[in-house]
């Protein structure tokens, strides 16, 4: 059972997520399973207060992956207290969006449809995300 206690170890969380993605990709490689570019959704309603060095390492690692086209990142701030500046530091290509209210349902519906589009794409296909549909859950 999860419980909130005021901590936001963003660096540690992102490191764990990237490590898990690497493990999964290796599993797919070992079994000869094709896979697509992974997506990382980073959501926060506050400011990171974990280990500062870990945060910097995770920011740099994420930026390197995005710039080398190994990862797509979707930074989302929730509520007025979300640290959009730190979210932006993770993401060299896509500015963070703030969730409209608590429109999680609309966000995950959009995310599901978007990922499905990618998983059905073939080499040479240009997958365009539904930008208009983002307005249902996010704002710049």
């Amino acid at each position: 059972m999860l419980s909130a206690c005021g901590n936001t170890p963003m660096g540690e969380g992102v490191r764990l997520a990237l490590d898990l993605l690497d493990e999964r990709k290796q599993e797919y490689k070992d079994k000869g399973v094709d896979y697509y570019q992974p997506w990382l959704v980073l959501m926060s309603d506050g400011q990171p207060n974990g280990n500062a060095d870990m945060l910097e390492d995770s920011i740099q690692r994420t930026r390197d992956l995005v710039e080398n086209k190994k990862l797509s990142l979707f930074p989302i701030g929730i509520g007025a207290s979300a640290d959009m500046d730190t979210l932006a530091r993770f993401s060299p290509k896509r500015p963070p969006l703030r969730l409209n209210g608590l429109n999680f349902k609309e966000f995950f519906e959009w995310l599901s449809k978007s990922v499905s589009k990618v998983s059905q794409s073939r080499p040479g296909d240009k997958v365009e995300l539904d930008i208009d549909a983002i307005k249902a859950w996010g704002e710049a």
Partner: protein
Amino acid sequence: MWHFIHYAVQGRSHVKNNIPCQDKTYVLHKHNVSVIALSDGAGSAKLSHFGAKESVYFISNHFAKYFDDYVDMSKTKEWLLIRIQKALTRKAMKYNCSVSDLACTLLCVAIKGNRFILFHIGDGVIGCLGGNALEVLSAPDNGEFANVTNFITSKNAFKSIRYSIDNVDKISGFVLMSDGTQASLYSKRQGALAPVIRDIIQSDFSVKKLQIGLQNSFENAIKNATSDDCSIAFAMKRKPSGYNARLLTSYFSCIKNEKLLKKMR
């Protein structure tokens, strides 16, 4: 003497979205050169079916004319790619589009005397049967992700060329297949071709009947394993000696039925 069978079928997603089949195959025997070629047009490149058609036609006729120049290395793979790209540029002018609208992969094997030349850009597989053993001569080039590959028109095209010149004496057949066909006839995990490829190359059926069987199997079985276009081309060194009509229909309609194939051996 080399004999050919080849086929391309429109994928289910292309039928649904009214997109033409972007896979093209071409076979040629000219100036004592035997050539098989296959090309898969890029998904969202609007005229890639024309690019694929031009690519297979151009490379086949080019190797028929200049085979010896490549064997003695007076012409190089880079020169070949430039010629193919120029052919696509001419087509782009004709269709009033950009060259990238004609983006496609390209697989080709050309044979003359006891030598063969292999040329491959992009995904898809080139294999051969040497003795009784199937061998992958050129594996798919997808990079890390399934929906990424290189095309003739890509910036990385020159770096991604797979090219070889070798002796053909111990080889009894070659196969080219697109990534759609890979779903049925290639194991990425094992890096191996399906055993039925060997059965087809070693088959005693006439070329005409093999061609009919190939078309039936692609229309009724292979294309159902994926939503993508599927294509394949074989060059077989053989002396066809007739066919057994009773076995032919079940042979191809059950192309993935290993138990039936074992009974027939």
